[in-house]
């Protein structure tokens, strides 16, 4: 077993994992972060995309052990605590950028990653930026529109200084660090 600590959606978790555990399985099965889905399981579809230290990665192609010490953001941590949707989520909703919805968590996380680097992408740049994410329903048209809408919304927002959102969760099991021991 390998001892790892991850900060997932602002909460720190310490766990022992079998080295062969994929990050996506750790997120879903140990931490209950089932918003991140397994799609193709072959590094093609991007449905399992999460942010690792702010960069999009396919969590089916990262060992949980490789993520030791890193910060992970999943679709579950994207909305505000009061339920306010992230601008990308809101734009996907408004533009109907999905049908079955299976690709959506990864698509949104990949879009957030893209917009963090390019706040004003052209249509072509959105299509290329999302090349690692497959959608078999929409034909992509509304997805591209939603990402560009979200970009415009985010550019219009006054950037507020972000407070650290990291909190520590008290576990039910006795722990010397005051963190969740699993």
């Amino acid at each position, binding site marked *: 077993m390998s001892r790892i600590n991850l900060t997932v959606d602002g909460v720190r978790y310490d766990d022992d994992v079998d080295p062969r555990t994929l990050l996506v399985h750790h997120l879903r099965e140990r931490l209950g972060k089932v918003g991140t889905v397994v799609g193709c399981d072959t590094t093609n579809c991007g449905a399992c995309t999460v942010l690792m230290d702010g960069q999009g990665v396919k969590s089916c192609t*990262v060992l949980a052990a490789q993520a030791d010490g890193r910060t992970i953001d999943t679709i579950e941590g994207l909305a505000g605590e009061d339920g306010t949707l992230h601008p990308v989520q809101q734009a996907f909703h408004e533009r109907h950028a999905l049908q079955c919805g299976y690709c959506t968590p990864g698509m949104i996380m990949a879009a957030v990653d893209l917009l963090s680097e390019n706040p004003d992408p052209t249509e072509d740049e959105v299509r290329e930026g999302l090349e690692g994410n497959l959608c078999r329903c929409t034909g992509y048209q509304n997805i591209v529109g939603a990402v560009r809408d979200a970009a415009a919304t985010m550019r219009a927002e006054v950037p507020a200084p972000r407070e650290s959102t990291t909190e520590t969760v008290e576990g039910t099991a006795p722990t010397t660090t005051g963190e969740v021991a699993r």
Partner: protein
Amino acid sequence: MIPAQFEYSRPAGVQEAVRALAEGGEDAKVLAGGQSLIPMLRMRLAVPSLVVDLGGVVEMRGVRDDGDALVIGAMTTHDQVLRDPLVHEHAPLVVQATSTVADRQVRHMGTFGGSLAHADAAGDLPSVAVALDATFDIEGPGGRRTVPAGEFFVDYLTSAVSPDEVLVSVRVPKLTGWGTHYEKFNRVAQAWALVGVAAAVRRSGQTIEDARVALTSMGPTPVRARGVEEALIGAPATAEVVNAAADRAGEGTEPSSDVSASGEYRLHLARVLTGRAVAAAGGL
């Protein structure tokens, strides 16, 4: 799909990694960014007893200026390569080819050295390394050795790196006064090259003084297109010369046939793409 069980080691230095590999024996495997290995682990095409994760080896990350060459640490991610000002200035061919590797997510994890050591015939960086006459620094139990690009790629998925060795860094000579271009043809849904062409051309006025051309996915290893180079060097920089030279792109190749392209089609692509790559590199 879940990989078979393995032991896991995360060394902090190159020598520690080499020791871990020695202790792990023949079934030990190096993990760089994992973007090729983890899919193989999941499909159980690879079933190592020990995985040695180089993710913690800080000395293997980053790009260094070494006079007439850049030294790119093997664990530098594709994304870091794309952001590096030295690579942009001295090895734009590396930047151009790297930007076509897979997708953003894979480029965030995948590494420069990992994709070279993996030696995928359809990988973009091997032909670039061959065209640039890169050299490879490899460390093993017997110390460090240097292998030229022409000897690094041995066969399908087989490089000169032995199972008990680690590719530490790659030395990429600066090409000053050259134009370069990477031309690639792939299916839209996947970034693997059906055929790719890495070209570098140095002109003096209207004469092509020197040229280097290497092909992706035209055989088990990248192919240096010597016939094309021979036809270009010393010739006038004209479209006719480039087209005649590009017709020789198939010489010495062994293109395979698969679901995406027949060998014959790959030969056709190699000629067309070589013409485009050389013309772009030569500013024609």
